[in-house]
C-alpha cells in the first residue's frame, strides 16, 4: 500500500502543506463576514418565540454590538500579530513563505468582518426604530 501512498504523494509538491494552511486561513477569514451578514452564527433560539418582540430586537442589537467589538478586537490583534511576525522575519517550515504575508492576506477578511459587523449594528438599530413606528401607527 505504500506504493499507492507514494503515487499519490508524487502529485503533491513540497510545501503544499504550508500553502494549504495559508490558503485555508485566508478562506476562513473571508467566510466570517458572510456568516455575520447572513446571521449564520450558532445560537439557541429556544425562547425567542416566547419573548416579547421588542426584547428580541434589543437582544439582536446587543449581539451585533458584541460581534462588532469582537471583530474589531480580532482585526486589531491580527494587525499587531502581523507586525510581530514581520519584525521576527518568521517563515513557514518548508516553503519558507514569510508568515506575515499570510497575516496580511487574512487582514482583508478581518477588516471585512469589522465593516459587515458595523453594518449589522446599523441594521439592528433600524429594526428597533422601525418597530416603534409600526407600533405607533397601530396605536
Amino acid at each position, binding site marked *: 500500500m505504500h506504493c499507492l501512498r507514494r503515487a499519490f504523494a508524487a502529485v503533491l509538491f513540497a510545501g503544499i502543506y504550508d500553502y494549504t*494552511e495559508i490558503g485555508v486561513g485566508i*478562506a476562513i477569514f473571508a*467566510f466570517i463576514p458572510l456568516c455575520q451578514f447572513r446571521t*449564520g452564527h*450558532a445560537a*439557541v433560539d429556544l*425562547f425567542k418565540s416566547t419573548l416579547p418582540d421588542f426584547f428580541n430586537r434589543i437582544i439582536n442589537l446587543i*449581539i451585533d454590538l458584541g460581534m462588532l467589538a469582537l471583530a474589531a478586537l480580532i482585526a486589531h490583534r491580527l494587525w*499587531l500579530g502581523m507586525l*510581530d511576525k514581520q519584525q521576527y522575519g518568521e517563515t513557514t517550515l518548508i516553503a519558507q513563505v514569510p508568515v506575515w504575508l499570510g497575516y496580511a492576506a487574512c487582514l482583508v477578511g478581518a477588516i471585512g468582518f469589522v465593516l459587515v459587523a458595523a453594518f449589522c449594528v446599523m441594521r439592528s438599530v433600524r429594526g428597533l426604530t422601525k418597530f416603534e413606528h409600526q407600533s405607533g401607527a397601530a396605536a
Partner: protein
Amino acid sequence: MTDLSLALWSFPVLLVLVFLRIPIALAMISIGMVGSYLVYGTALPVLNAFKNITYGTFSNYSFSIIPLFLLMGQFATLSGMSASLFRAAESFLGHRRGGVAMSAIGACAGFGAICGSSLATAATMGQVALPELRRYGYPGSLATGALAAGGTLGILIPPSVILVIYALLAEQNIEKLFLAALIPGILAALGYMIAISIWVHFSPNDAMVKDRVPWGERLAALGKVWPVITIFVVVVGGIYIGVFTPTEAAAVGAAGTGLVSVLSGQMNWSRLQQAIISTAITTAMIYLIILGAGFYNSFLALSQLPQTAAAWVGGSGLSPWVVLAVVLLMYLVFGCVMDSLSMVLLTVPIIYPIMSVLDFGMSPQDFGLWFGILVLIVVEVGLITPPVGLNLFIINGMAKDTPISETYKGALPFVVTDLIRVVILTAFPAITLWLVWFIDGFK
C-alpha cells in the same frame, strides 16, 4: 473568589448567555477572556495570545478537513444519488409490510456514506421519499418520524462531521473513529427498520405494499448506486490503508462527489454557488466556535478546573459507570434544546479529560473511540427529540398537511430504539470496538 469557583460559576453564566440567544462563539470568547483576566489580574496575557490565536486556529491544517466534508455533503445533495439509493432499497424491501419506510431508512444509511451531515441527509431524502410514503398510505406521523430518524444516519455512518470535530478536540484517530462508527451506524438503521415493522404490525392499515420486484431489476437498481459505493470505498478505505491522510481523503471525496453531481446533470452555476456559500457560512460558524472554545478552555485550564474535577471524580469512589450514565443523560437533556455541533464543541473539551481518567477496564485508545461513538449517538438523538429537534422541523416543513405534534409522535418509536441502542453499546463496548480490533489485526 478563588480561581476554581470562578470557573464553576462560568458554566451557569455561559448557559444564561447562550439561552438569551447570544451566539455560542461570542459567549465563549467573552467569558474566556473575562475569566482569564480575573485569574491573571491583568488582560495582557490574553491580549498577547490573541495576536496569534485567530490566525493559528483558522490556518490549522487538521481543521481544514471540516469545510471539505461539509462541501462533500453539499455536493452529495445535488448528486441525484438520493433517488437512486431509494429506488434500489425499494426494489429489495418495497414488497414487505412497512417496506417503503424501511427503504427510506436504508437509503438514508446509504446516503450517510457520502454525506456527513444529518440535516442534509434528512432534507435530501425527505424530498425523494416523502411523496412516495404518502402515496402508499403512510400516515404523516410515521412518514415524517421515519425520515427525521433516518436523517440522523447521516452523521452516524462515516464520514461524519461531528465525529471529525470530536476527533480534533479529544485528539483521537479519525480513521479508527470512522471504523468504530460503522457497526453502531448499521445497528441504528436496523433498529429503525424494526421500529417501523412493529408500528405497522400494530396498525397494518398504515402502510400499503408494492409488488415484489424480480431479481434482475433489483440488481439493475443496485448497479445505479455504484458512485456511492466507489466514493465511500475510496474515502474511508483510502484513509485506512494509508493512501491519503484524512484531510486529503476529504478533498478527494468532495471532488468525487462534485464530479458525480456534475455528471448527474443536477449541478448548475447557481446551485454550485449556493453549495459553496452555505459551506462557507457553516464553516465560519464552526471555526468561530472552535476559536471560542479555545479561549474558554484555556481559562478553564488556568483555573485548574478539569484537573480538580477529574481528581474529585476519581477519588470520590463513584462507579465510573454511574459517572458515564450521568454524562450521557446530560447530553440527552441538553440535546433537547441545543444543536449537536455546538453541544460537542462546548462539552467535549471539558468532559473528555474528566472521563478519560476513569477506569472502564480498557486501553485509553479504546476508551477514546468508544466514548466518542456514545457521545455521537446521544447527541444525534437530540436531533429527533422535541422541542428543538432540527430534523423534525426540516421534515415537518416539507409535509404541509402534518402538524408538528404528529411528527413528535411519529419520532417517538425511533427515539426509543436509539435509547435501547445506547444502553446496549454502553454495556458491550466490544460491539463498537470489534471492527477496529479486527482490522488492526491485519496491520
